[in-house]
């Protein structure tokens, strides 16, 4: 694997490809993906189903192995990065353990990583506060709404202070109002913690609202068709979505998505 010494680059992929062998022949989930993500960026991956955006995230997380090309995470291979607990991963579903209370769910990675009890308590309290779930420590997951469960799962990913946060359509199953609210909170959280966030979505407004960089992808084979650097300010109230600047970026994303589809 190629290892880049540039400390400012968190993720660097070059000519990355991943082919799944299935009974119906090979499926090219990723093909020739070149991408650099710098520290502190908020990068959204957008594209239709099957464009490989989730696969790319899973390659970063060492949950899938690329079949060609190179990728480095924090200057290491994805496996080394995973072993050094370089990232927190938020899945499409909250995946909270139903037999654990919220605080014990958030403490789960801390238990596994061997933090002391006092340390665990302090971190759980801090991260639950970050996602506005203070007061729900003793509740079980089923006692919380879907949005609150997803916030708890974000707290769990934040609890061990990895600098990189990988989020795979975390708000996909939530209704629009809750989603708006969580997007706003996520931006505040990003501003406060200065983490690097990779965020998979298929909502154009969500991608434009959140990101400093939008990666537009297209399916079969999954590849990057456009990378858009956002010109929006870091401070983003919800009504920024009505400004001409926002709409221009959204139009360009839509254009990129349409271009990807015309290959078919």
């Amino acid at each position, binding site marked *: 694997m190629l290892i880049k010494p540039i400390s400012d680059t968190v993720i660097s992929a070059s000519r990355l490809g991943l082919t799944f062998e299935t009974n119906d022949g090979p499926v090219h989930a990723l093909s020739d993906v070149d991408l650099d993500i710098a520290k502190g960026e908020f990068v959204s991956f957008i594209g239709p189903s099957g464009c490989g955006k989730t696969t790319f995230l899973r390659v970063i*997380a060492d949950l899938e192995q690329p079949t060609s090309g190179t990728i480095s995470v924090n200057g290491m291979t994805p496996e080394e990065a*995973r072993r050094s607990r370089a990232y927190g991963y938020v899945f499409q579903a909250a995946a909270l353990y139903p037999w654990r209370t919220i605080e014990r769910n958030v403490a789960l990675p801390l238990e*596994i990583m061997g933090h002391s009890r006092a340390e665990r308590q302090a971190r759980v309290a801090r991260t639950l506060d970050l996602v506005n779930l203070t007061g729900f420590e003793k509740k079980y*997951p*089923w006692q919380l709404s879907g949005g609150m469960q997803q916030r708890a799962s974000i707290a769990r990913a934040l609890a061990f202070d990895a600098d990189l946060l990988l989020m795979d359509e975390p708000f996909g199953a939530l209704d629009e109002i809750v989603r708006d609210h969580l997007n706003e909170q996520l931006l505040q959280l990003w501003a406060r913690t200065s983490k690097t966030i990779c965020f998979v979505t298929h909502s154009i407004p969500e991608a434009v609202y959140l990101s400093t960089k939008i990666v537009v992808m297209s399916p079969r084979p999954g590849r990057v068709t456009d990378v858009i650097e956002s010109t929006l300010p870091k401070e983003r109230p919800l009504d920024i979505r009505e400004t001409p600047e926002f709409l221009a970026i959204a139009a360009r994303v839509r254009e990129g998505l349409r271009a990807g589809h015309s290959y078919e």
Partner: protein
Amino acid sequence: MSAIAVPGGAIGRSGIWTRMSQGTAVPVLIVVMAILAVWYLAAVWLNSAWQLQIFARGEGDWTWVDFLAGTMSQDRPLLPAPHQIAVELWNTVIGQHVTSRRSLVYHAWITLSATLLGFVMGTVLGILLAVLIVHNRAMDRSLMPWIIASQTIPILAIAPMVVVVLASIGMTGLVPKALISTYLSFFPVVVGMVKGFRSPDTIQLDLMRTYHASQSQTFWKLRFPSALPYLFTSMKVGVAASLVGAIVGELPTGAAGGLGSRLLAGSYYGQTVQIWSALLMAAALSAMLILAIGVVQRIVLARTGARP
């Protein structure tokens, strides 16, 4: 205000019958009464041949009332009437000191101790085998067929051999019976726990991978808690099988005591009332054990956040 329906008002008005029919008491009572009625009819029918012989040997006159009463009060009826069994149960459970060999409680305890020992060993063995099977593909392939094959051997055929062979090396009493119980009860636990340990979603396992959790951490923090509901279900099946195993194990030992030896002695001497009361005692034991596991299950699952 009277136009608004009062919640619970309907129950208050239609009284006790509505409330009882909504619970389980009435349906259960009806079924029990139906069984008793069928039982009495069957007792009259099955015992009638013998009763007619008694009358034929006697001095002529008998009425249908004599006949009915006769079929329900024979010493060694083909099928004892329920009240005969009830009297026998009363005499052997309440009427005897528990340390007496005539007490059914004494015999039940002998069987219960073997059942419990075998059940505990079977459950532990079942969990251990399931752990091996889940964590090792070679074990999965090599062990599982043998485990399934083990249950195709008729226990009635193998139990006497186990008892006799173990007796020849000086092992008698509790242990041989417990081993037969173990043999029967480990199976549902293995099958249930393999399913339980494999029940976590891919996403939950992926989560553990992102934390770089070790295999034992994944087991204790994810697989084992996920498998708990499966454990209790298989334990309920296992404990019933365990009791059957202990009783079967007591059949060849004859005089050594236990419900199984009561069954055997009863059949030697044609004491059908004794057989049936031992059977009912075994059924009551089994129900009690399953109930006890159910209580533990409810407590444990409530403590691990199960939805009430």
